[in-house]
């Protein structure tokens, strides 16, 4: 087990969003305010870590033929639990993330890590893989939220800071391009981020 390597992979060289290009749907859809990004990131981190640990624990007894079905059952179970807990204890977040919480079941980051990592590695390594990949995902979400919120609405920390949780207005309200908070803005920002990541990675390899 190589913690430092796993950490670097999750954050940079194998970043789930920017390098593996997994979990695009949620990345586009919810990165419109800081609070959403943080909530979604942490929800995925928790579910990913739990399901990684369980899948790693049962990997020896799962028949190969039905492993995908077993993964999905485990993941769906955790997602439903998180969904219920959010609705019960953080209703504001549950409401603003809406249908994207149940959709974590089909978030390919979680199934992807189950198949490519925790099915083949020990419990501790899988646990840290969940944490680091989750952090990598959360960081990208936060960067996208900050960019889209700043350019699209001129605010910072929407849903969390400022009056009525509307965020702190930085740009005067006539400047921002509302387009950036729409799906098209998600594609633009994500495209630029992936390009920047590839450039940085190819540069560091030389």
């Amino acid at each position, binding site marked *: 087990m190589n913690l430092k390597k796993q950490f670097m992979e999750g954050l940079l060289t194998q970043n789930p969003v920017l390098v593996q290009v997994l979990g695009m749907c949620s990345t586009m859809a919810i990165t*419109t305010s800081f609070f959403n990004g943080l909530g979604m990131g942490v929800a995925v981190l928790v579910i990913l870590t739990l399901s990684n640990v369980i899948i790693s624990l049962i990997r020896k*007894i*799962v*028949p*190969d*033929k*039905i492993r995908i*079905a*077993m993964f999905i*059952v*485990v993941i*769906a*179970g955790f997602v*439903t*639990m998180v969904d*219920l*807990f959010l*609705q*019960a*204890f953080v*209703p504001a977040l549950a*409401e603003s993330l809406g249908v994207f919480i149940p959709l974590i079941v089909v978030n390919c980051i979680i199934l992807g890590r189950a*198949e490519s990592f925790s099915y083949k590695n020990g419990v501790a390594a899988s646990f840290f893989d969940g944490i680091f990949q989750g952090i990598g995902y959360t960081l990208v979400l936060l960067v996208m939220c900050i960019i889209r919120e700043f350019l*699209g*609405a001129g605010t910072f920390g929407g849903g969390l800071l400022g009056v009525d949780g509307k965020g702190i207005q930085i740009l005067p309200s006539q400047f921002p391009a*509302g387009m950036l*908070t*729409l799906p098209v803005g998600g594609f633009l920002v994500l495209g630029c981020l992936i390009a920047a990541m590839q450039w940085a990675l190819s540069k560091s390899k030389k």
Partner: protein
Amino acid sequence: MSNEVQTKEKVNLDPKYIIKLTVTLFLTCVVVAGLLGLVNKVTEPNITAANKAKTEAAMQQVVADPEGSTFSDALEITEDMNAAAASAGAKVTEAYEVQSGGAPAGYALKIVASGSQGNIEMMVGVDAEGVVTGVSVVKNSETAGIGSKVMANEPTAAGVGVLSQFVGKSAADGTLAVGTNVDAISGATVSSKGVTTGVNAALAVAAVMG
């Protein structure tokens, strides 16, 4: 995924193997379902309470006398109410009787109408005389920065909040329509029309309820 590539591999029809697969998957499902049952037991009271508080808060925003009003349990939605809402182009999903100081003071109706990006769920208060006492949006998916202005009750060109302008309207004003007796937020006409449709439906339903 490498196993799927070798499709030539014979399917193992050994009954023991098939039973093993079935039992494993079945047991996993049973365990997961059991755990979910437990979680549900813990969270359900909170979820119910949170939903109820949300509905009550929304109702309080739309009645004339928020302090002194009490609300009945959800009333049954009759065929007539459904028909009245449908004729105005929206759906009524919940209805509550409002009591103010012990006297009946009209109804709070939850209406679903279509906006520009999906359904707009709103609470509309109508008093005993069939006059709108308030409109508040409970749930929507309107475009942030455009339709969301309507949902947040921002002022129209006339200077009145786009949702507040409905207060005082009644069936006597005729069918409400954007451009004639309702002002839209510029750029958010579809969202404004959605809300207007909802208010028309609420007035129609309240008229049926008497």
